[in-house]
């Protein structure tokens, strides 16, 4: 059976079901509301696995599922050298969110990364420690700032309510996802003009480490049904 991992709840799950339904595949939860079970109608050889979106990158990397739907940001954050581990089959056009760097809106002198870097140097001299950036996207943020040549910062882990860290004096800036920017504005933060790290959306990925001996043919049929180019795995 070709195992397809999909988000187990919320809008991401519903939109995933809609996306497949538009292409003639009916995915549905089965059993009671609380039971994580699901089934496919209209396609032989495909098994649905309901998972937390955050765990789907790991399951893909391990090859325990063949296909998975999750945010492109999560794959890039959680998997080192991600193109070697998964193939992007299709961007799905929902779940849009931008991973961005934001600083206090009151910082009139900071517009872009060059300013952030200069402020980080002065901040370290004045405060005796490096400028703190709160995030849960450590790999993406660090890679982005290294390529931009920003120094004298440190990442501090923030798994939630990241927009509040600056006001609470636990960070000076944040790297977080935003869709409308409203939460940022409400917390008196602004996005750096060149501070877009990644534009994320829900994406259908294929696992390179999965066993494709039997399921390769199923994938070819599925790609044909969905109107997708079969990936080189």
């Amino acid at each position, binding site marked *: 059976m070709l195992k397809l991992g999909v988000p187990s709840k919320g809008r991401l799950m519903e939109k995933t079901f809609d996306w497949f339904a538009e292409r003639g595949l009916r995915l549905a939860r089965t059993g009671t509301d609380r039971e994580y079970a699901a089934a496919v109608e209209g396609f032989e050889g495909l098994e649905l696995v309901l998972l937390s979106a955050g765990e789907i990158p790991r399951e893909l990397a391990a090859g325990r599922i063949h296909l998975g739907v999750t945010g492109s940001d999560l794959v890039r954050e959680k998997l080192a050298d991600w193109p070697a581990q998964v193939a992007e089959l299709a961007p799905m056009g929902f779940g849009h969110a931008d991973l961005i760097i934001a600083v206090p809106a009151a910082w*009139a002198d900071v517009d872009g990364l060059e300013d952030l870097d*200069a402020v980080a140097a002065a901040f370290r001299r004045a405060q005796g420690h490096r400028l703190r950036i709160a995030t849960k996207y450590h790999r993406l943020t660090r890679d982005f700032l290294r390529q931009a040549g920003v120094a004298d910062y440190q990442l501090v882990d923030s798994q939630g309510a990241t927009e509040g860290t600056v006001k609470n004096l636990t960070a000076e800036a944040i790297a977080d996802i935003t869709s409308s920017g409203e939460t940022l504005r409400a917390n008196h933060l602004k996005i750096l003009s060149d501070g877009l790290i990644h534009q994320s959306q829900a994406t259908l990925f294929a696992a390179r480490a999965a066993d494709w001996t039997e399921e390769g043919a199923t994938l070819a049929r599925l790609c044909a049904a969905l109107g997708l180019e079969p990936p080189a795995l």
Partner: protein
Amino acid sequence: MPVRAEARQLGARLLAAFRAEGAAVIETDILQPAEALLDLYGEDIRARAYVTADPLRGEMMLRPDFTVPVVQAHMAGGAEPARYAYLGEVFRRQEQPDPERPAEYLQAGYEVFDRDTPEEADAEVFALFARLLAPMGLTATIGDIGVLRAAVDGLDTLAPRKAALMRHIWRPHRFHALLERYSGLAPMTDARRALLDGARPEAPWIGLRSPAEMEARIATLAQDAKAPPIPAPIVERLDALFALRCPAAEAPARLTGLGLASLAPAIDRLERRLAALVSHGIDPARLNFEASHGRATMEYYDGFVFTFAAPRPGMPPVASGGRYDALTRVLGGGREIPAVGGVIRPGVVADLGGKLAC
């Protein structure tokens, strides 16, 4: 013989050769407190070193290099002058699979702390490595971060501009972006113009950075906007300096020919170093000089730098090293001592046939 066992034997021979030069063998912990390494290298080190947690001592790293703990040990009570030798594993996280870049490998190192004759100490370390590695037919390249620093220091421009360029000598991308800005090649952004015209956002102040810190930076930016750009011919000379590659014997004349007057003391040091190398039996005509050597990869070096490499592409250098006077200042708590040293990778020596002159 398995490569790892052979590497260990080669390392032991190198360590014996270093001891024969009068070096004291020094042991350092594999588990190092993360703080000193993070302060020195910044956040990037987390991507390159293994970070772990100790329930009592906090964040620790598996030793990514020996230089920092050796300098710490020396600054905590070493006699002067001092020569140290060591052999042990270092650990480097790899974000991409690469058979040439193991996550764990041996380094055999030799470090000299000497106040009196730095160029002689440079030559001593280089010549020792050259002698030990001679049977391998490697390509040696030298450079001098001190020359680059002298070029920045000698610019006739605002002190904050020079400080910003100096801070980014090791990050070529940001360095050249700043140079473009300061030389007027990159136009002023609309946001910067509005800021200098007095635009201030309607937003409450939040966070630890103070309004006074912001006003101080705005004053610096206003000064910067009024200051004349770094002239294009000077930028061209800097670009020519960063691109300079030639036989080491020609380097002093080529550097003098760039017409950057502030380089004179650094060129004198380079000439003294080359003379010291000759007295150690090294022929500078057969040595490569690259002005930007080590610029993107060897961040705590601030003077002489060198590598010995095999002609096999993609392979890490067999040996590398350099001068790190500023590092001793950072780690010395107010004290400093000129220091130079380097490491040989016995595992790479083994991969290339294991021929050492010791």
